[in-house]
């Protein structure tokens, strides 16, 4: 799960009119920004399927990290494992994943609110 591709997918579907190809992260933009609405909807339609998959894989990843850190913490408490470093790194990773999810979610909510407030 790449941070860049997630950001690109999120931005491309929440702000119609911009199209960022999310096939290869870091690939140079070869197509001009489309001007007409039909092109934008088509692009947004193609991008929104991958956006859902992206979000789903993103959340699954975060959930897995949280579950792993909980399991390792419980193992350390019951004495099943004695590896403090592994537990601490997994907990920290889970914290970061959680905070990142929250930050991305807040950005998306802000973007959606701003778009819905636009005068048409």
């Amino acid at each position, binding site marked *: 799960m790449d941070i860049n591709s997630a950001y690109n997918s999120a931005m491309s579907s929440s702000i119609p009119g911009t199209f960022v190809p999310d096939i290869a992260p870091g690939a140079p933009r070869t197509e001009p920004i489309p001007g007409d609405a039909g092109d934008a909807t088509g692009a947004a339609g193609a991008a929104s399927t991958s956006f859902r998959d992206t979000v789903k894989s993103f959340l699954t990843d975060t959930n897995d990290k949280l579950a792993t850190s909980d399991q390792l913490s*419980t193992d350390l408490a*019951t*004495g099943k494992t004695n590896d403090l470093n592994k*537990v601490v790194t997994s907990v920290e990773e889970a914290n970061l994943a959680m905070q990142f999810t929250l930050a991305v*979610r807040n950005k998306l909510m802000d973007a959606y609110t701003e778009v819905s407030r636009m005068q048409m």
Partner: protein
Amino acid sequence: MAEISGLSFGSTIDTLGNSLVGASMQNEQIANNIANANTPGFHRSSVSFKDALAAAVDGPATDPDTLPMTADDDRQFGMMTGPVPFDPKPVTDDQMKMRADGSNVDVDREMAELSSNSGYQQTMAQLLQTQYTRLREAITEQPK
């Protein structure tokens, strides 16, 4: 934690909270052992709270004489056994070799146990704090 209130925020928080309770019980026993280091005929005691914690986490051990319910699909319900309460008790250790005055307290081991227990308590407290921080983040929707 389940014993303090009826509300439970998840099994990990319960387990970590119980580990703190168990660790402080062990602390009490170690302090008692050290205080009685020179008492003739004294046997050291300890609390095996980690085993009690493991039992509370994993559920009750299966009785080999009963036929367990088997499920061949994840959607089928299993046997709902009640949770094992966390209930560690101090036990007196009669196994360790005794000195001439009948006491089997080894002050060095007790001090090392004290240090180890203290480190364990700090670790569990820190992990518990992380859990609470995560909950607070989810509730307030603000990354800390």
